[in-house]
Each structure stands twice: as structure tokens, then as C-alpha cells.
């Protein structure tokens, strides 16, 4: 147990280092701030829809794009600069580094996706339960952060642009099938099946339920699904990073 606490403390150190080094890197700013901002504007402007109907999609998109902005680039960057080898020479396990990368990705996503939430309060829009929304935001951001670190695991490249491109290839289809633009209940049966494979679906469903009282799966299933995705992505990220480590050194 003490060993676990020691390693988790190292994850926090890794995370703080990532925040200092990677938050202001060009691709992170582009994919994590500029891009979601313009996507949100395109989503909002010119639509004659009440704000509370738009907010679930907006919050979902913001959380998804920001929490997946940092993760894909860290390991390739560290591979290229050989700092991954430096980190691994210290008494840390691979999972410690993966969790550290996840946490820095999570903090970036959470800090920014709180903004639309604050706007909600500012405009006085009613929602069913703020605490549940906050909890969902935390779990969803962790889940997306784990996905982003998983996306950097394969191929074991040292070119951040490669993982950024590949992660975009995964991220965009996920947004379109996740009920952000079209509510799940309005999707055809095959669309619903596809949507169920995306973690964003369940987060959007929670937000929709809390804002406009129209959920599809129910809170319990949404949270369970998000947790299942979080655990699966985290374990997969650790295992694949461990396997591909030799190719990165």
C-alpha cells in the first residue's frame, strides 16, 4: 500500500511537470483551445434553439476535446527528447507515468470544461443537480484523459503530430455518434448501437438529463458505463505502453 502511495505521489510530480511543459505547446493549444472554441461557436451561432437545449452538447464537446488534447502528445514528445528514458531511470513504474499523463490531461480538460458550466450558472439556467453534474464532469474528463493517453500508446512513434492526427481520426467520429448533435432517442436503432460504444454518449446523456430532463439510459447506467470505459482505457493504456516501451528507447 505504501508503495502504491509512493508511486501515486510520483504520478502527481509527473503531472505537475507535464502542466509546466506541455500546456502551452502549439498542438495542445490548437487542439485543446482554439479548435473546440471555434467548433462551439459554429455549433451555437445561427441556431434558433434555446440555450439549455444546446448546452449538453456544448459541455460534452468541450470536455471531450480539451481532456483529449494533452494526452496524445506527451509520450511521443518525451520519446523524441529521450526524457521518457530519464523518467524511467527514476524509481517509477510505467503505470505511474501513464497515470501522471492522464492527470495532466484531466486537469486541462476539467479546468476548461468548467467554463460552460459557470456560464450556465451565470445565465441562471436551471439544472436538476449541480453535484451530480460536477461528479459526471470529473469521471468523464478522467475517462477522456485515459482515452487520450491510450491513443498515444500505439504506434510507438516519436512524432507528436502523428498521434495528434490519429487521435483526431478517432475523436471526430466519436463526437458524431455520441448524441452531441442528434439526441440518442432520435437515432435509428443501428445508430443507437454504435453510439453505445462511445464514452461521450453517456456523458452527454447525463448532461441532457440534468438540463432538460431527457435522458436515454438513466443516471446509474451512464455512470457505470463511464466508469467501465475509464477502467478499460486506463488498463489498456498501461499495458500497451509497457509493451511498446522497448521500441521507444
Amino acid at each position, binding site marked *: 500500500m505504501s508503495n502504491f502511495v509512493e508511486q501515486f505521489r510520483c504520478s502527481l*510530480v509527473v503531472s505537475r511537470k507535464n502542466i*509546466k*511543459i506541455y500546456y502551452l505547446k502549439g498542438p495542445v493549444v490548437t487542439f485543446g483551445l482554439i479548435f473546440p472554441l471555434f467548433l462551439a461557436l459554429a455549433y451555437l451561432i445561427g441556431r434558433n434553439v434555446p440555450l439549455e437545449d444546446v448546452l449538453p452538447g456544448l459541455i460534452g464537446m468541450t470536455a471531450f476535446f480539451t481532456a483529449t488534447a494533452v494526452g496524445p502528445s506527451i509520450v511521443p514528445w518525451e520519446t523524441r527528447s*529521450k*526524457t521518457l*528514458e530519464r523518467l524511467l*531511470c527514476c*524509481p517509477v513504474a510505467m503505470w505511474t507515468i501513464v497515470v501522471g499523463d492522464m492527470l495532466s490531461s484531466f486537469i486541462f480538460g476539467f479546468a476548461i470544461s468548467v467554463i460552460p458550466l459557470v456560464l450556465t450558472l451565470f445565465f441562471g439556467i436551471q439544472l436538476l443537480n449541480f453535484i451530480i453534474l460536477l461528479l459526471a464532469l470529473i469521471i468523464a474528463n478522467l475517462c477522456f484523459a485515459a482515452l487520450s493517453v491510450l491513443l498515444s500508446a500505439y504506434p510507438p512513434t516519436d512524432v507528436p503530430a502523428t498521434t495528434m492526427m490519429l487521435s483526431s481520426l478517432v475523436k471526430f467520429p466519436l463526437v458524431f455518434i455520441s448524441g452531441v448533435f442528434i439526441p440518442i432517442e432520435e437515432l435509428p436503432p443501428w445508430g443507437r448501437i454504435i453510439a453505445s460504444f462511445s464514452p461521450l454518449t453517456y456523458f452527454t446523456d447525463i448532461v441532457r438529463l440534468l438540463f432538460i430532463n431527457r435522458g436515454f439510459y438513466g443516471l446509474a447506467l451512464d455512470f457505470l458505463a463511464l466508469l467501465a470505459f475509464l477502467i478499460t482505457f486506463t488498463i489498456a493504456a498501461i499495458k500497451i505502453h509497457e509493451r511498446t*516501451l522497448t521500441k521507444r528507447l
Partner: protein
Amino acid sequence: MGYAIEVRDLTKLYGNFTAVNRISFEVKEGEIFGFLGPNGAGKTTTIRILTTLIKPDGGKAFVAGYDVLKNPIEVKKRIGVVPEVSNAYVDLTVWENLMLIGKLYGLPVKKIKENATELLKEFGLYDVRDKLVKFLSKGMKQRLLLCMALVNDPEVLFLDEPTSGLDVESARLLREKIVQYNGEGKTVFLSTHNMEEANQLCHRIAIINHGKIAAIDTPENLRAQSMDLQYIEVAFNKTVEAGIFSENPNVVKAVPAGNKVRIYTPDPSAVICFLVEYAKKNDLRIISLNTMMPSLEDVFLKLTKRKEVVL
């Protein structure tokens, strides 16, 4: 005195290629152990296994008493590593790099600050502690790497080509520090291409070639094992064909070397007598005569490129 490093039948495969082939050796506590070999011989792979970065496919390795496979974290707590390629965080300052490494070793912040201050002063980096690493010279970066490897006060130091590409002053400083820290009880595992450096610093040297240990001994003994590589350089007042000396049974090989003739022999004394006689008979004067012992480089080349060095 115990062993700081013990390696038994260590093997590492990359597909069909055997990078490290059942090597075995020990490094005594407090020893500077040189690890020499041509590029691709298996040096870095061995260091990466010993520093727990990669897992071996066979054999055992113990560092500071811990199994690298079973207790990698315990091993890493007791070692410091200076890799071949500079790998400090260039977007962090010198100070931030040391703090980061210290924290990853779980040291209290106060202790890290004390160690970092002491090391930076010792290595002449204290005045640049707030500079980003990307703005440091190569020599400074290499000194910083050694500071980072020492911040946790390790028992065993792994140095992979630590002076490669450095200016004379920085290289000398690093060598002095290696000797100093070894004097304070640290075991040093030094991989280098620099024969003179290995000769000066190492108590014992292992030469690895094609993934196998070709020889392990003190630099002196390694040279002594290769006495067939000793030679005599002789210059006469007139030009003499080198081939004439090859007929002597004590001569292995004779080759021209500028205005001199280089004569390889296992028995220099007999050859010198022969040369004096030859000079008298042919009315020649010996201008210079030197007996040269094999250098570590000669031994290295003999052991690693047997086919090329045909005497």
C-alpha cells in the same frame, strides 16, 4: 567486499538478433568498471537491462543486491544513470530538473534543495540554475546530467559515454568527478569508446563484442595478454626495406612506418640484438629505436576485430 553488480548468463534478443548473448560478470563494490565494445556490441542494451529499462530474455542480474527483474524499483532507488544522449528537460530550468528528479526519488524537498545546491556549486552550474536547459552548452548539459544522476546519492553510477563529444575542460572535470565520487565509495559502471579514459579511470575492463564478453581484466593485464601486439620502431640512417626483417624467426610482421620500420615481435630483446648485428654488417647507423607496449586500443581492436588485425 561484496558485489555491486552481478550478471549471470544475461541474454537479450531482438527478434532473431541476439543483442546480448549469455554474458556473465561481477562488479565489486567501490570499483570503476569499464565496459568497452564497438557500436552495436551490446553495451547500451546491457546498461538498459541493468538499469531496469528493458527486460532480459534470459539470465539473472543483480544491482545493489536486488534482482533487476523482481525488484526494479528497489534497484532504481540505488542507482544514478547518465545516458548516452542528453535527456534533461530542455523546457525546464537547471534547478527545476534537479527538483523534479529529487521528487521522483521521493526525497524531502529540503534534502533535494541541499543536495542540488551542493552539486550545482561543485559542478560550476550554480550561477545558471535559473536558466532553461535549452540555453546551456553541451558541456553544461552533460554536467547537469551527472548532477541529476547524483541528486539521490546513489550507490552505483551508470555512465554511458559520459565524455563523448565534450570539450577537453568539461571532459577532464567529469573524469575528476568520477574518480572523486568513486573515492567516496560509489561503484561506477562506465561505458566508453575512449580507450585512454578507460585506461586512466577503470580498475577493471570488460570488452564486449557481438553480444559476448571477449575479455575481462585490469587494463595492465589486458595489455599483458596481448604481448604479440608489442613492437619495435627502428630508424636507420638509410632507407631499409621492411621485408628484410620479416625473415627473422622472432619477427611476426614488419611494416614501413614513415622513415621507420615497425617490427611486431613477442621477443623484443632478440630482435634488438638482431637489429644491432644487422646495422653493423650493413654499415648502417641506428638513428632511433623504441620498444612499444600494446595500447589498450590495440588490445581492443585485437579482441573485437580479429579478422582485420592479422599480424
